[in-house]
């Protein structure tokens, strides 16, 4: 997953972008996505569930979903005129059977 610099916006999970100076704060930006597992993946995962270990289908699913949530967050930051999102956090919650919400949030800033 190439989250690092999405469409020219720098992300970091520290309160600064190391090596740069923050010149303006724009506030909190968020992005989310709710995904359900599709039946083919679930079938394979069900088989894998017998012997245990990694469920690759789910790993990829969550990776894609997290990327999408992050892209939405970045889109919001760009519309505000920011060029970086700092202190990025991720959250996952199971909201219904077979579905999960992935959520990314951070602070949109302009750095020099």
């Amino acid at each position, binding site marked *: *997953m190439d989250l690092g610099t999405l469409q020219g916006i720098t992300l970091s999970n*520290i309160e600064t972008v190391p*090596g740069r100076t923050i010149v303006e704060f724009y506030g909190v930006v968020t992005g989310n996505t709710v995904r359900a597992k599709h039946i083919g993946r679930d079938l394979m995962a*069900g088989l894998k569930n017998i012997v245990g*270990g*990694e469920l690759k289908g789910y790993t990829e699913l969550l990776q894609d979903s997290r990327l999408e949530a992050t892209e939405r967050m970045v889109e919001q930051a760009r519309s505000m005129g920011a060029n970086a999102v700092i202190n990025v956090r991720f959250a996952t919650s199971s909201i219904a059977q077979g579905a999960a919400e992935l959520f990314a949030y951070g602070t949109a800033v302009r750095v020099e």
Partner: protein
Amino acid sequence: MEPGTVQNLNLLLQFGLPLALILFAYFIGSMLEKRHFRSIGAREDALHGFPVTTFRNLPQNWQVGQAELVTGNVVVSLDYFKRIIAGLRGLIGGRVKTYEPLLDRARREAVLRMVESAKSRGFDAVVNVRLDTSRLANSRGNGEGTAGVEMLAFGTALKLDGR
């Protein structure tokens, strides 16, 4: 066919099959787990000397050139046999040993993926590493069906000047 043979066959189908499945899951599951631990060990050795910290403040002498977010994730599930053992453990309480190696290797795998992704893109260090664990819901409402645990590792990768 004699009635006794039919009964035996029935018995075999009723108890033999699940037992065979449990044994199969146990052997394959432990084999995969051992192999995974070996792979984790080897990859951790290969990354020896690559700075990965949970600090948010950088050492004073670091001249940062570029910073980016890096992540690594993995979804794992327990094998059939171990789930039964863990279920039995639930009756008497105490340490659930079958879960410990699973969560441990998943977490280390997630960190490794994050660090490997940072290294392959030319970064020199990862700081402020955070680890997240979340349980995925079962696919069926009655609590059955596939469920998994996701481990997520994320941090800020840095390119350092003068390195």
